[in-house]
């Protein structure tokens, strides 16, 4: 019997099919709708109306602000946590780590519903603090994505570098500032990317904790619900471009770093 043999390019056919079906094709469709009107004629009108409407621009800004604040709050909570986890000699630190990851195993709608109840007990009327509540909700949701990359990058930090720094006269604080922090930049970058991007496009958390007309996800949803494929697609394209730019910037940061780090090993 003849043995089945594939060469490399043949092996990538399934992946290419998948890519065309689920990535390229939808993109093309979205692009088509974004630059056409209801009658299928090419137009920039959707584009113009998005950037001329204060409503849509406001939503974009609000989403962006929410995502950035959430990312910063996540970083501020996650860094000390990851640092303590990575540094501690506590033998059961995996149990501690698990405590942070465990909520991820619970369905997130359930988690947010529970959070909503807790918040309404504390705040009374939750609609008064929409921005704050959204930040709390998304921080709760995305914190593990920030802790994990930070934890990994702090854990693999060569201990002898810290010893070398203190040997050269650095106090504990200086060691942190001049060695630990700069060397954990790749972890910070990847953690920030992993929080910023999903929180920009988040839909469910914000739908439950925020006035839904002021978020990007809901805006797209409301257009689609009204069978206005064109305007909905255009907003998707705008989001896509923003995410693309953010990824490009962060990748440049971590690339520089991995180059200088990788060669040492």
């Amino acid at each position, binding site marked *: 019997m003849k043995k089945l043999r594939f060469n490399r390019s043949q092996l990538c056919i399934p992946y290419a099919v998948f890519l065309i079906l689920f990535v390229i094709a939808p993109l093309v469709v979205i692009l088509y709708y974004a630059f056409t009107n209801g009658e299928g004629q090419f137009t920039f009108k959707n584009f113009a109306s998005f950037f001329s409407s204060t409503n849509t621009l406001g939503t974009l800004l609000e989403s962006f602000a929410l995502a950035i604040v959430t990312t910063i709050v996540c970083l501020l909570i996650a860094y000390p946590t990851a640092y303590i986890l990575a540094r501690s000699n506590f033998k059961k630190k995996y149990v501690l780590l698990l405590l942070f990851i465990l909520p991820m195993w619970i369905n997130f709608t359930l988690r947010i519903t529970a959070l909503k109840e807790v918040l309404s007990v504390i705040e009374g009327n939750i609609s008064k603090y929409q921005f704050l509540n959204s930040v709390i909700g998304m921080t709760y949701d995305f914190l593990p994505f920030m802790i994990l990359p930070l934890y990994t990058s702090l854990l693999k930090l060569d201990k002898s570098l810290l010893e070398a720094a203190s040997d*050269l006269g650095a106090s504990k604080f200086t060691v942190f500032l001049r060695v630990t922090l700069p060397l954990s930049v790749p972890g910070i970058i990847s953690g920030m990317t992993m929080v910023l991007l999903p929180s920009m496009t988040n839909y469910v958390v914000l739908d439950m904790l925020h006035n839904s007309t002021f978020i990007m996800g809901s805006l797209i949803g409301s257009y689609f619900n009204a069978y206005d494929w064109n305007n909905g697609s255009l907003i998707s394209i705008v989001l896509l471009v923003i995410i693309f730019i953010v990824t490009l910037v962060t990748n440049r940061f971590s690339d520089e770093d991995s180059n200088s780090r990788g060669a040492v090993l």
Partner: protein
Amino acid sequence: MSKSENIIELIDVKKVYDGDTVAVEKFNLQVKKGEFVTFLGPSGCGKTTTLRMIAGFELPTSGQILLNGEDISNLPPNKRPVNTVFQKYALFPHLNVYENIAFGLRLKKVEATFRNDAGDTYTKKIKLTKGEIDKKVKKALEIVDLEGFEKRSVSTLSGGQQQRIAIARAIVNEPEILLLDEPLGALDLKMRKEMQIELKNMHKRLGITFIYVTHDQEEALTMSDKIVVINDGDIQQIGTPTEIYNEPVNTFVADFIGESNIFNGTVVGKLKVKFCGATFDCLDDYEINQLVDVVVRPEDIKICPVGEGQLKGKVISSVFKGVHYEITVGIGKFEITIQSTQNAPVGGNIGMRIEPDGIHLMQKVYTVNKYDGVITRTNAVQFGDGEFECDVTQLYKGSHLDEEGYLITAQGEKIDLSGVAVNVEVDTHDILMTDEKEKGGAQGNIISMIYKGDHYRYIVRTEENEEDYVLSCPDLWNTGDLVGIIIPKDKIKLSLKPVEGDNVK
């Protein structure tokens, strides 16, 4: 010797890890200013731990470390005027060469005198200026011969270059002591030889005290003013390279430093020792009939025609080593290694002569194993983390055992021996090792082996309480092997412990 001469002094330093692993014990050492001191020992002997205690990365469990007479045992590393060159360099990957070297300088504060408006002078601690740092970094790079490398990223440097930067980074701070933790371990042989000479020159030029850790005996002999041979957390010998090589105090040092032939010998007269079936004149004075270890360096054995010299034997093998031949000669059941510029045909008979100054006698450390034991219910004896069958009737002369296991003395008295404490002695020749661990009365790992001409001397250590069994065996085993210990029933010598107020007769 006045106190001020010693730059660093270790007094009874002890380090215990995790509550029970003793890394270093009773470490006493004095280092004079400007000396090149080497800690030499096999891996895991505690030399790096000691260095790390001097640097401040580890705190001693007990004991003191004095720097210029002041106790620094509990100071953090950044408060000690000591710098370290790490084994794997530990250069900061996010900084370039210049910034790596300037790291310590940027943190350093020096006292400077100022004059205020009223004309009074006062001192204040200030940071070094950019110009000063620049000058010092340039000079450090010059010392390590890497001028012009300032802007390079450390990841683009070769191992040897990284090593030099690590040295520059340490010496730029002008430490009182430079600690080097196997700094040349990762370099290839040729590079290592070059760096050895360079480090030695650097030491002369800078006048800083160097404390150097290595497991390479040749490196230690080449570079040091003083060698501290360490094994198993204990200092074995402190001395100059010549002293250590020519006058090793025990078989461990002799075996670890250079090549040695080690034999069991007996002192047979004033300055006369017998080993390998012949009698030799020697220079070490021991009591007559004392058993000794005899160490003979391979190069101290001269080949001569058969009939001349004290020994004769048959050449088993001869290997050309460049400068000399390494010749193995069989003398009866003994084997002896000779290094000679003169070759000898394999299979031929030769005579050998050893001058008195080539023979080093050492007091035998181990001849009998002694333990505290307890008799069990089944009339076996427990000691050294194991249980062995033994002949308990030797405890009472003329006694025997009855059917139920009670001991009946010659007087007809019935004694229950279980739980009785005894002294146990076993000769080193009477202990056997076995691969079948379960068959042994105790189990342990071989932690040391030394070839003694016609047999090996092993030390087997149990895991539980770290009890040692010293034994002689003609077969070759490997260090680290897990073995079972077998002792024939009749070879275990028991004696009762003197117990006060007990009715033992």
